[in-house]
């Protein structure tokens, strides 16, 4: 293949990664923005979403559903289950720590191992697939100078699947919905009020503790949804949370902690560059560059590349 089509393929793969990352990182960013705590167990909620998608589709297959019905059931149920688990963890653990940032980190590290190892015990060490609801191969055209000027043709190997395009569209729709929810709905207003000043929100009768539990659950549900979307492409495995956590850390930090728009921009940047660098160089080198970049961003521009400095 020539360079051009190759680059296009890399960008498409990058866009799929960016879509999933944007969903996951916006969950992390939402939790940090409203509650001011870092959830280290976020990657495990993503893993749990993927695993739950497998569990739900297996169950539905027993009832004789088709792949599309099974997948929709998984996309609805898995985030709900994972979100409830996270909300329960918030009430049982984080609330008692008074949301002290450092103690929350240690506690969520513990939670990370509990969820991961519980998945190992309940689900097993093997990666298991979920069938995509639809998966047609779509050949992609490319233009080049031919005998009659600019010609369109279909290079061999340049293709994607309808499901991958669906993942990108779904992520865009969900993120737009999240944005509308935060800016237009009453619940979003309450969340933003809690984010700006928790004490003042309490004074105005906002049940801050309940808001925290819901936000923590919603953040986990977003990660779980990302897990459900990726599982037809990538199979569910109990260790898949680690890399995902690191990547969403990178995205959230580069985008500016707590800023949703910045997170999305950073997800596209990191997803695309990861896709492209991995195609032309080794994935390890891409990761080294990304992790070092994040460390240096935090050191020299703590508000993130797109964030605004705090008052």
């Amino acid at each position: 293949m020539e360079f051009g089509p190759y680059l296009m393929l890399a960008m498409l793969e990058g866009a799929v990664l960016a879509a999933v990352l944007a969903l996951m990182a916006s969950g992390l960013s939402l939790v940090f923005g409203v509650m001011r705590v870092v959830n280290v167990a976020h990657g495990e909620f993503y893993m749990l979403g993927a695993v739950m998608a497998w569990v739900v589709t297996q169950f539905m297959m027993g009832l004789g559903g088709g792949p599309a019905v099974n997948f929709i059931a998984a996309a609805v149920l898995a985030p709900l289950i994972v979100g409830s688990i996270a909300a329960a963890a918030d009430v049982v653990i984080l609330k008692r720590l008074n949301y002290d940032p450092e103690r929350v980190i240690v506690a969520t590290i513990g939670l990370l191992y509990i969820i991961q190892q519980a998945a190992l015990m309940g689900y097993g060490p093997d990666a298991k697939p979920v069938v995509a609801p639809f998966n047609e191969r779509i050949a992609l055209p490319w233009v080049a100078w031919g005998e009659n000027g600019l010609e369109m043709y279909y290079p061999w190997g340049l293709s994607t699947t309808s499901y991958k395009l669906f993942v990108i569209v779904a992520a865009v729709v969900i993120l737009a919905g999240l944005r509308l929810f935060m800016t237009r709905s009453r619940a979003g207003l309450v969340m933003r009020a809690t984010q700006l000043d928790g004490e003042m929100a309490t004074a105005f009768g906002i049940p801050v503790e309940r808001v925290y539990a819901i936000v923590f659950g919603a953040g986990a549900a977003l990660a779980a949804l990302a897990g459900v979307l990726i599982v037809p492409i990538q199979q569910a495995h109990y260790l898949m949370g680690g890399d995902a956590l690191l990547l969403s850390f990178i995205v959230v930090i580069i985008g500016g902690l707590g800023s949703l728009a910045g997170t999305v921009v950073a997800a596209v940047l990191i997803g695309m560059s990861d896709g492209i660098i991995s195609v032309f160089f080794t994935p390890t080198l891409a990761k080294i560059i990304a992790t070092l970049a994040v460390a240096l961003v935090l050191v020299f521009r703590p508000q993130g590349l797109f964030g605004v400095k705090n008052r």
Partner: protein
Amino acid sequence: MTRRDLTLHLGLIAGLFALHFLLPAYHHGVFARVMVLAVYAIGYNIAFGYTGLLSLGHAMFFGAGMYGVGLASYHFAIPALPAWIIGLGCGALLALVVGLLALRTEGVSFMIVTLMFAQAAYLVILYYSEYTRGDDGLVIPGDMRAIGSWDLSDEGTRYLLAWALFSIALMLSLWLVRHPFGRVLVALRENEERARLLGYDTGGRKLAALVISGTISAAAGGAYATMFGYVGASFAGVQYSIFALLWVLLGGAGTVLGPFVGVLFMTYLNDVASGVTEAYMLIAGVVLVLLTLFAPQGIVGEIRRRFWKDLP
């Protein structure tokens, strides 16, 4: 340093020496490992427990010592003692560079920056797998594992050397925290602004604490490499950073004996758990959550709170 402090810590050292002659073979081996890892935890405790620097990247210092020794003996046939000193140097240098950058941040940012640096270091080890053999790791040749006529692959020698290293690290950490320098570190942990107001150079002290902490961690990593003859990338992974945090929290952050107690306790807990289930890290997770919820002081910290107010 009071007489009671000295009696307690020298008593532990004497007790561990006596155990060399008393322990059955299996536990003898476990204790040798526990003492080396306790040195790593002692190093971590100086940064986290005494200075209040929550680092999630200490595995890179442990790994720097380990790979300093491993690469020197494997590729350049440098004998154990000089190789160990090279490992120490690697750890100190890395801690200095990381400290200069990471200490510009604090709190949660510091934790993420150290985590990212450690992850980058881990990936560098994998990237240069031509020299480091990546995940498979290096097996240090037998003739490099000797200091003079002492053969470190022999279990008795290994135990005694681990004991000596542990004793030095323990007494060093006791001396440090009773020294005015150590007291300033505690002041920094409790209230950095006030310490600065009193005229202490807080940035310099924190950097010094991190370098000391990193060097002790590297000493443990280097010793682990020669004593057990294996150098692997997993020792530099994020899990080993979390282990250090877990051990110190369990034993008691900011106590001299805490790191040893934490490593000992956790090692035997894992030993029992891995006999029951493959998912033995579940125990580590549960312990971490329970500790933060109910005993943030750890075992030795609780003893200090209840019975022995001036335990170092």
